[in-house]
């Protein structure tokens, strides 16, 4: 089987799998009662009224972690093609990859001792 055939199947599955979530929601729409009220549809906050809008800006810390994530995920992306041909490229490939991982590890150690990895709540 060629891969194109399989991707066709995956595309078909994406549409077909929608049945599982859509069908119960549609059925529930017909059987479930619908009596919305102003108090019922209020956002939940343990009984108090929400102060201000909750669509707020995030803490800067999340962005720092996001940048670290991008660095390491791109590393992982480079890692996978190498991992597949690991046996063919031999020790030279291993040394090259160890150097690459080593540089990133140094980056992780730097980030750690700079205190970037401390989660401040």
């Amino acid at each position: 089987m060629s891969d194109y055939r399989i991707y066709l199947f995956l595309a078909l599955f994406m549409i077909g799998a929608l049945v599982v979530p859509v069908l119960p929601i549609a059925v529930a729409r017909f059987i479930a009662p619908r009596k919305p009220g102003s108090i019922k549809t209020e956002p939940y906050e343990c009984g108090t009224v929400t102060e201000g809008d909750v669509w707020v800006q995030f803490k800067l810390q999340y962005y720092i972690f996001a940048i670290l994530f991008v660095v390491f995920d791109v590393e992982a992306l480079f890692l996978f093609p190498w991992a597949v041909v690991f046996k063919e490229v031999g020790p030279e490939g291993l040394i090259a990859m160890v150097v690459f991982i080593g540089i990133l590890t140094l980056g992780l150690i730097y980030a750690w001792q700079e205190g970037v990895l401390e989660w401040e709540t």
Partner: protein
Amino acid sequence: MGDIMPQWFSIVLLDILKMALILAVVPPCMMYTTQLERKAIARIQDRFGPNRVGPYGLAQPFADMIKMLVKEDIVPKGSDKLCHLLAPLLIVVPSLFLFTLLPFGPGFIAAPISTGLLFFMALGSTGTLAIFTAGWTSRSAFPLLGAIRNAAQLIAYEVPFVLASAVIPMIVGSLRMTDIVMAQSVSGWFIFTPWGFTAFLLLFTAGLAEVNRTPFDLPEAESELVGGFHTEYSGMKFGLFYLAEYVSTIALAVLLSVLFFGGWAGPRIPFLPALGSAILWISMKSFLLVFVTIWIRGTWPRFRVDRLMGFAWKVMIPVALANLVGAAVWFYCPGFIGTAVSAVLVVSVFLLTSQLWAAPKPVLTTTWADQTS
């Protein structure tokens, strides 16, 4: 043209059959996983668990389903109505998708693509988008907190998940799931190698974090965020989040049994065809792993947020990187020396990083005000 049409038709029919099989088997599996979880946790806590609906409470999942169906669907005011509806669809479809990539027997795999493992991980991480959509569009404080926590958690645990799984293609030389199982039938299960064992622990831990199971269920922390991202969901939409969580857990268990426990390999069970025996073996292995996740849920408390992030970045990523080197050493020096060296490498990195991570830190004066006082 006359003989092309039936061929095209038979291909589509086969696809539809495969699809129908997955969609018909997976949701009932999920329903009974919830039942198993409730029963097992009840036993751990010296209770009976649900035992009223049907014999031994076996009809309980259906009762739950009916309850979900007849509950009112409440959409909070001020929320993004369309995205509020889309989020449960977005989380269920990828989680079902995972089952197309998993092999359940020789040739019994819906989509045997050559990049199976990578595609699995790519699909597995899309759940966070849906969870973020759910939390953000609810326009409520608790779901938002849950959504942000989930994003941070997934960002942290995706990296060790990917890094730890990279050792499998290194040794197997392929990302195809069936090749991974075949390689284990030659060399023995990967769980018995030092790098395989480490990778299993890392993948299991990171996988639990990705599917938001205890001890990493911070995005839905019932006791602090009243349900987290699905606080504002009710009725069937809430049920779909539940479905996705359990389906992902089962998919994770099947993946782990494929990667480390030899997949469908096992002694032929009498009175069964070869395929049936294979499916039974992989089902038993996956069931055991699902049971372990339930067992963990019944035992361990939840992580603290800062500890959670620290554990991923400071312990799991260094150990995963060391494990890559360990696997290379194991490959180039076979026998006892390679095994010992890779084991010692991983264990020493774990001991070092866990000390640095969890040891009490000296209190540093960081601000001018602290220094003067």
